[in-house]
């Protein structure tokens, strides 16, 4: 009979753990997909649709479901791509399109006819206006997604480069200017030697 003890012990253990797991899966259930949440948190939230999905959240879902590769977020740039590749545990892939300078949309109000089409297109609600009134863009909230350009019937929207702000200015990578200077210095020395 003694040889059955371990069997009983493990059977009871398995039962207890099984019930515990079942309860845990019920009471600690996580709503939503944590992986796609994580990816969504990394994306720049421009909602530009350059990845081929209507916004950042759908792209995050698609990446989490392994439907699409990690290198489609153009505004996020290389840093975002590397971070997503890290989470997904896949090889980083270079972004095909070139990284662009940060821009915001600007409406030439003289030409605006007040059709409200751009207001409907803006994914972050940063265009102010009413029918038959000039519209304008709140530049602080504009993500530069360019989605308002397409619906405008009179083409009165421009994308302008965001001005460099003093309080946002940061030191550049060291070495670049110094390297140039060193090069010129070397060249002058070489000339002097000759």
């Amino acid at each position, binding site marked *: 009979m003694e040889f059955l003890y371990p069997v009983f012990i493990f059977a009871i253990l398995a039962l207890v753990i099984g019930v515990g797991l079942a309860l845990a899966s019920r009471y600690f259930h996580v709503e939503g997909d944590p992986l796609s949440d994580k990816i*969504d948190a990394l*994306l*720049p*939230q*421009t*909602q530009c649709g350059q990845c081929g999905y209507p*916004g*950042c*959240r759908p792209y995050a879902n698609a990446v989490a479901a392994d439907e699409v590769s990690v290198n489609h977020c153009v505004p996020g740039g290389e*840093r975002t791509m590397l971070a997503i590749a890290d989470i997904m545990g896949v090889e980083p892939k270079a972004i095909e399109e070139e990284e662009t300078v940060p821009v915001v949309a600007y409406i030439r109000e003289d030409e605006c006819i007040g059709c409200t089409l751009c207001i409907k297109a803006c*994914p*972050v*609600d*940063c265009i102010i206006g009413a029918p038959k009134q000039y519209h304008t863009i709140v530049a602080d*909230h504009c*993500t530069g997604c360019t989605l308002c350009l397409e619906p405008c019937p009179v083409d009165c929207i421009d994308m302008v480069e965001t001005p*460099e702000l*003093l309080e*946002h*200015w*940061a*030191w*550049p*990578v*060291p*070495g670049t200017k*110094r390297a140039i*200077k*060193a090069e010129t*210095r070397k060249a002058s020395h070489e000339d002097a030697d000759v």
Partner: protein
Amino acid sequence: MFDLWDKVQQVLHINTPRGFTGGIVHQNQYKITGGDSIVASPLPDMLVHPIKQHIGDPCEPIVNVGERVLKGQMIAKAQGYLSVPIHASTSGVVEKIEKHLIPHPSGLGLTSISIKPDGLDEVDESLHPLPNYRSVDIVELRERIRHAGLAGLGGAVFPTFVKLVHDQKHPIETVILNGIECEPWLTCDHQLMIEKAHEIITGLDIVMYLVDAKQGIIAIEDNKPDAVTVMRKTLKDMGLTDTVEVKVLPTRYPQGGEKQLIQAITGKEIPAGGLPLHIGVISSNVGTSKAIYDAVCLGEPLTERIITVSGDAVPKAVNMSVRLGTSVRFLLAQVGVTGFDDIKIIHGGPMMGELMVDADVPVVKASNGILAMHKQSIMRAHHDEEPCIRCGDCGEVCPAGLMPNLLAQHCKEDQFERAQDYNLFDCIECGACSYVCPSHIPLVHYFRYGKGQVAQIQREKAFAEESRMRSEKRDARLAKELAEKEEKRRIAKEKKEARAKALADKQAAEDATLSVEAENANENADKGVAKAVDKSEEAS
């Protein structure tokens, strides 16, 4: 034997005789300007006041173009808590309020108020002097110090009034007056201590009264024996020797850094991210102390400061008393610098100063030194960056106790989270590590780059978070609108159906009645016909 033990102690940092860890001693670079009295700079033809000359929020101009202002009149008011106002430094007419180059390494401009002096130097006397400051309410004194636009004149320009709080939670025991010169070539504080000892000590007394401190310490390095003598003598004359003492410290850079000085004097280290007041100490520069005296006892706002004008392109280096807003080009012309093609201008000292892109920048509250250097001498000091040889010299001299070699490596590789794990933000950018590096690695440049990038990433994250919120709200709103539309449509459909049904029912009912009537009529007709037939039959 004991010498050996001392050496071991020094190497292992046990019970170090130095006041703070790390630091370097400069050789032969002291006193390029020391010993000569302060020269007043003449009135220039234009004074430019940028609207932000302190750490914190920029000011808002309160004068208009064409308006006449007096010396000491407030021309831009403080906005927000961490902000101090700006005053005109002479009487004249506001010529323009527009972007002007400021002393900043970016070479970007900032809104500035340009004043054309009228040469009369008429003083605005709205601030009345308070010579008996001990009988004035501390709230009023503090408001006065803020109103006078005082910010730390050592170079950090932190609004002074913020420090001067009488807080129950953190009682201040010691006020330290920083008479250590912050950088090797500068001598403005040294000369000020010799010439304005009385004013400086009165300023210290005002601060001690404000924060209710029992002890005052004036810290001076041992390379300024004349300043020590003058300060000690003045203290004796004023009868303050019981509460205030002069402490002489061995010369070592960067002892003028707030955290380093406090550690050197009290032996207490300020916790990372903490403030001096958390350990019961506040410190203030001697220049600020003199400005506090001016603001309180004379009723003069901060309109001028002492600047060391030095560098190898300057024929005769000098300490000058300069009106804020004077252009650096004008200042250098006063000391005999005429050609600007061949020189580079450094705003600040040789260790921490920043290269200016142009000579047409105004002197601001932060300007403690202006160095004009020949391009050749800067280029001679320049070396190409070589690979790190892991000698550890940078860690040895770091006054914040960091590991600059690893920090720089992480910043270089854009691994900013790792760099923050190594306490990137505790770096005070003193430049000691770059100074000793045998491979000439521009370590501080990497740290500045890293700090800027971290700030940029945080800003982008915050913006992305806001955009996500806006986008989610929009989606929710659209979904709600859609749902409402659906609901309306459904209700309309139901109504329509109901109406149609009602109509149909009515129709049916009407039809039914009609048909009944028709039937009746038919019946009647039939009957009539029948009757008629009967009748006709009868008739026939």
